[in-house]
């Protein structure tokens, strides 16, 4: 379980996160939703310790992140897989090496074992025949999928995905959503996903957290989100014509 207690984060005068307290359960897909600019990415970076928080604390299975030493932090991080919103692939390495990189760094596997694992991960994100290409030579959606493959290569205990399916077509997006759900349940991971895609919410949202104005505005699951009477949440969920039609049909 990952827990945030009263997490507050400001950039100068701009208070992006205001006393956010959430619990992300293990073995579940925990979705953080909210408008663009609402602070989802900032929250995720606070959780993993890339941003220092101004107040509050973050706990990984009872261990407090801010109290860890440099070495302890490194150990916890070897259990973290993270997909960045922009992919953050190493552009000096081809696709396959990107996925193999954490394995080369932290395991004693032989080259062929690492290559097999990389190919397995790449096939799970529906990506074949791109192994030898460099990140600059593949499309945006492909980059995203390589980044997901790299994030899951080490079978992390904690998986963080910042908008895993933005920039993907609906079908591939669905494949990715279900992949994340599958591995979360299979390996009992604690998975946190930032998204503003309602399809993902309805598909895999075991726990859903809605961030609005820097606060945790609503929380529930994929069923309750459609029947909530929270005004701001409804404005967010039923923002388009299509979703409005679905709402009236419900």
């Amino acid at each position: 379980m990952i827990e945030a207690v009263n997490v507050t984060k400001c950039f100068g005068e701009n208070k992006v996160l205001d006393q956010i307290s959430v619990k992300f359960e293990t073995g579940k897909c925990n979705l953080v939703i909210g408008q663009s600019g609402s602070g989802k990415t900032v929250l995720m970076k606070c959780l993993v310790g890339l941003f220092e928080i101004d107040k509050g604390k973050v706990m990984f299975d009872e261990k407090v992140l801010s109290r860890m030493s440099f070495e302890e932090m490194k150990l916890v991080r070897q259990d973290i897989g993270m997909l960045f919103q922009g992919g953050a692939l190493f552009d000096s390495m081809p696709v396959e090496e990107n996925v193999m990189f954490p394995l080369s760094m932290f395991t004693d596997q032989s080259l062929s074992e690492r290559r097999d694992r990389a190919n397995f991960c790449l096939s799970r994100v529906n990506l074949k025949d791109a192994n030898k290409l460099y990140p600059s030579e593949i499309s945006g959606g492909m980059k995203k999928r390589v980044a997901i493959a790299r994030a899951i290569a080490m079978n992390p205990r904690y998986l963080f995905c910042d908008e895993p399916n933005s920039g993907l077509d609906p079908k591939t997006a669905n494949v990715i959503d279900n992949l994340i759900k599958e591995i979360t349940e299979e390996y009992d991971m604690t998975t946190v996903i930032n998204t503003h895609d309602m399809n993902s919410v309805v598909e895999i949202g075991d726990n859903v957290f809605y961030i609005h104005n820097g606060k945790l505005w609503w929380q529930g699951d994929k069923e309750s989100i459609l029947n909530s009477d929270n005004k701001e949440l409804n404005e967010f969920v039923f923002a388009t014509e299509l979703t409005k039609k679905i709402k009236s049909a419900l």
Partner: protein
Amino acid sequence: MKNFLIEIGRYVKLMRLVFKRPEKQSIYFKQILIEIENLGLDSLGIVVLISVFMGAVLAIQMAFNLDTPLVPVYTIGYATRQSVVLEFSPTIISLILAGKVGSRISSEIGTMRVTEQIDALEIMGINSATYLIFPKIVACLFFNPILIMISILVANFGGWAAGSLTGMVPSAEFIYGVKAFFEGYDVFYSLVKTVVFAFLIVSISGYHGYYTKGGALEVGESSTKGVVHSSIAIIVFNLVLTNIMLS
């Protein structure tokens, strides 16, 4: 002044991170080889080119200025060699390398910073400062002295060629001069300078890259800062080292 002290503080902190124990030695060894190729071998061409012309110009200027019967002709070879060994190769070539290698390092690391690649390394549990900067430091500490030795040889050759081709200095006289009054300590002094300058170039430009904030524009800015600051550091340390070692 306050800003300067803050920057020095951050620089020292970064260097302490850089010299933490690496995660996996075999990977680092491979990285070092790659950096030797990227930062060292890749600079060989420009170093040779500049050194030949530098030596040639030096010899011609010496010949021009020492054109009096009071000084023996071989002095031209001797003076050329001394200038090259003591100052021109270690300092001027290091300044050139600060431009070439320094800007490359700052912009490479800076781009990794703004595209979150450094964050990705950190999240995996890798000490990004060590991973990115340490192999570059080792590569340059090892290879820059080689470049400078080559530069010294080539510059003397350039001087000899210019002297002979223009007919200003007879070949035998120049060669005699180059060999005259040779002291090993001069070369030692030259190599010490080179090693110190190599460290300054990599660490300062690495520092500016590592702390880049923003986007493409800022990457350009850090790359400029990397070159300017490491050049200034070279000039200052040149004076300091010369004072310590030659007085």
